[in-house]
């Protein structure tokens, strides 16, 4: 924990204001809670990453020779469960959102600080369930928990894992609730809705998805637990249930959950692109409303996961056309970010490198989503590596690139220190290169027909799998390096100052790290967001 304040840093801030373990575990300060999340989420990212490494090691050869099939199935299940429920969903909202939403709107804290701390404890409780599953033998259902395999056939700890995801959901709901109330009630004087930073708009839309979607997965997982534990038939035809019903309920949450992962990331990119172009984002209102549009339409596309599941062809048509439509707001964002760079003053600092990486990778991720929205193609592609490649381009190329951009962008604000510039740029390039090498070959594998979740595969798929595994090792290195220079920066980093990037948001007008109450004087907002030119642009060093 960041308990030892840097020697030269004498100014009172949220880190040095109190000390001792209990001051962290019982804190109500949104910034400290964000740091608690940072530790927990990073832990799960490392665990999920180790499972990813095991998957890629096993798939380097066609035969299933590193581990047995049961173990492999558990490994990819744990990778998915941990990365989705314990990393991707909480990462940006619970860490960066928690830290920044109050700062960006000029508030002293979130609307419900105690509930905010409660969310973290609920997350940790879910984490304990997750860790118990890990150490007692794991689960082999895949993160999708499809019935009747999960309810009647799996030998793993299905109920315990479902319970972990179930509990985790409440943490998510409470965070969403907190954000919505905060954005409605706590904005500084003069900060109207259309003066809000786009990061806040994105989090507002995300919060809406969290509180509307998460209860559905909670109910679904609860029904699954009832069927598995008490043999009450919902999904297993042997008990009179319908297995496809589970898929409808599961994807009703889990497709919008994709937007819980990607929308906050888009919010980060809007901030980063604007700052490093020293320019108001092109089409502010279009970017803001596209977040809302994604949140709304995102709830209406779940059936595109069921084109081969005996769903009616006409229902499929509706889901297909809506899936194409939900892609449009994302395209609008990409075009607007690109247009922002026109006649700008572009600085290629590390956060901007990640943002540019995001734009490239998310574009590919989004476009390959069209392949899967197109019914005739999806029949061939669904459940193959094409799907794996597509959602990793969106989740890793999109959500994690955005998270890395955000972490590098706000690190000086969070810690008061700068990280090593050279190493951070090297790592950004490694992540981009390693990512593409890992996942691009999987598009080709998918079109050739390699099914997902295969422990062993026919030999003609080997060359592309070896490329993918090689890429994963570069990607892993790219994620390891920031871990080192971030930690080193706490001791050796240059002092950042209040506004190292010359950005306009309110969070940059208070000191770094911010004082416990965020602002010594509540700011009054008199201009729109991103009014560059109205102020002097400052630069690091």
């Amino acid at each position, binding site marked *: 924990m960041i308990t030892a304040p840097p020697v030269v840093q004498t100014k009172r801030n949220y880190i040095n204001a109190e000390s001792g373990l209990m001051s962290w575990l019982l804190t109500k300060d949104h910034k400290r809670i964000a740091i608690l999340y940072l530790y927990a989420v990073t832990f799960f990212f490392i665990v999920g990453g180790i499972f990813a490494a095991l998957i890629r090691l096993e798939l380097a050869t066609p035969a299933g020779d590193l581990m047995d099939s049961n173990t492999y199935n558990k490994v990819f299940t744990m990778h998915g469960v941990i990365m989705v429920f314990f990393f991707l969903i909480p990462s940006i909202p619970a860490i960066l959102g928690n830290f920044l939403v109050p700062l960006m709107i000029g508030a002293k804290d979130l609307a419900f600080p105690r509930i905010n701390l409660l969310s973290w404890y609920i997350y940790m409780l879910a984490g304990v369930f997750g860790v118990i599953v890990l150490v007692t033998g794991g689960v082999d259902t895949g993160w999708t928990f499809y019935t009747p395999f999960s309810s009647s056939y799996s030998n793993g700890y299905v109920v315990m894992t479902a319970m972990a995801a179930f509990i985790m959901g409440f943490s998510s709901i409470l965070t969403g609730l907190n954000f919505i109330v905060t954005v409605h009630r706590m904005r500084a004087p003069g900060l109207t809705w259309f003066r809000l930073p786009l990061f806040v708009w994105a989090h507002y839309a995300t919060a809406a998805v969290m509180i509307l979607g998460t209860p559905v997965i909670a109910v679904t997982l609860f029904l699954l637990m009832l069927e598995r534990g008490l043999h009450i038939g919902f999904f297993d035809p042997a008990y009179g249930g319908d297995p496809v019903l589970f898929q409808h309920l599961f994807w009703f949450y889990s497709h919008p959950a994709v937007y819980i992962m990607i929308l906050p990331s888009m919010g980060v990119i809007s901030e980063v692109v604007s700052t490093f172009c020293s320019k108001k984002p*092109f089409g502010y209102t279009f970017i803001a409303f596209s977040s809302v549009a994604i949140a709304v339409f995102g709830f209406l596309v779940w059936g595109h996961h069921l084109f081969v599941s005996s769903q009616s062809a006409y229902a499929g048509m509706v889901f297909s056309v809506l899936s194409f439509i939900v892609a449009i707001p994302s395209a609008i964002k990409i075009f607007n970010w690109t247009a922002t760079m026109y006649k700008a003053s572009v600085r290629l600092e590390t956060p901007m490198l990640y943002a540019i990486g995001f734009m490239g990778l998310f574009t590919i991720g989004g476009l390959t989503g069209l392949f899967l929205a197109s019914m005739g*193609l999806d029949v061939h592609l669904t459940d193959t590596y094409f799907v794996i490649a597509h959602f990793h381009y969106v989740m890793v190329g999109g959500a994690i690139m955005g998270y890395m951009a955000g972490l590098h962008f706000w690190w000086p604000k969070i810690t008061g220190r700068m990280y090593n510039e050279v190493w951070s740029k090297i790592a950004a390039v490694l992540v981009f290169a390693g990512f593409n090498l890992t996942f691009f070959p999987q598009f080709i594998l998918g079109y050739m027909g390699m099914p997902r979740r295969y422990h062993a595969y026919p030999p003609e798929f080997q060359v592309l799998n070896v490329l993918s595994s090689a890429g994963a090792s570069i990607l892993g290195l790219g994620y390891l390096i920031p871990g080192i220079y971030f930690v080193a920066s706490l001791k050796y980093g240059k002092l950042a100052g209040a506004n190292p990037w010359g950005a306009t948001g309110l969070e940059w007008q208070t000191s770094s790290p911010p004082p416990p109450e965020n602002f010594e004087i509540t700011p009054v907002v008199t201009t729109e967001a991103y009014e560059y030119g109205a102020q002097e642009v400052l630069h690091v060093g």
Partner: protein
Amino acid sequence: MMEAKSFQLFPDQASTIAGHVDALYAFLVLVSAFFSLLIAFLVVYLAVKYRHRPETGPPVPHESGGHGAGGMILEIVWTIIPLGISMIMFAWGVSIYFTESRPPADSMEIYVTGKQWMWKIQHMEGAREINELHIPINRDIKLTMTSEDVIHDFYVPAFRTKSDVLPGKYTTEWFKATKLGAYHIFCAEYCGTKHSGMIGTVYVMTEADYNKWLGEGSGEGSMAEQGQSLFNQLGCGNCHPSVVNNLNGRCPNLVGLFGSRVQLKDGSNVRADESYIRESVLYPQSKIVAGYDDIMPTFKGLISEDGMLKLISYIRSLGAPNGTVTTATPLPVETSASPRPSTHAVNGAAPPAGARGGAPTAPAAPQPRIQ
């Protein structure tokens, strides 16, 4: 397909639908490549052209924004163009899907039962195989599929088609193979421990070779004949007449039933397809035929999924277009609750359950092998 392959970048194109799917794929690849390269070019170009120059300072404020009339036109343009292109993709995808999901009326019928972790396949003529599917070239083939346990998915990449195989329900999949050869069957829906071992091979043969292969059958009779003996063994005929014009039974006559519309007691009507017959055998109370009482006991647990498919074949044969009733001699009936695990093995080769890469050579005609 004619020689061993260790590396491939594109799947074999071996069905009538494959070319259509590949054409749509090519269109999407072109559109995606165009937009990806466009964005990549613009981002790199703008980042270099408008790179920060410390001497000139920040851009002048009036150049930022994008709320002017020009900005609005741009927003509309880059909303409408992607929307238009994606609607083409949508319509094209739907038209292929409708072809993919509607088996032609006169398709050759084959029955598939998935179970952890093997594919059991029954031909109407009686031949049975495991993890292998022999089919004639240039014939519409319709698979009617169900699962004994969890959800599986019957996927043939070379045919560009797949369908989930669900427990408690029949799904169909069809294709018309256009190239002789051997192609992978994969289970594409995760089904447990040996999911990646639930693979097999489709052998596309000439019509003559296929008929020859069928002739080497099990000697157990056609599916309908086997279904008839099951019918007799289960005593179905005690109540259900299976002779034309006999309406004296306590239960509906089965002649001409298959494919017809059945009037139900509650006023609705239903088409007598595979799912209807299956449901009526297992859950007889759920759909009562108008004019009859709810007296049939359930046969749940008394008949396997494979047996059910045979029974359906028999009932189907009673409603054959020529109106004749199959006159199969009742055969010694296998126990219906537990079908014989050993099946018709081609040329004496053991069924390669779960074995990868060891596809036995197909009978007759030199068959190219997958590897």
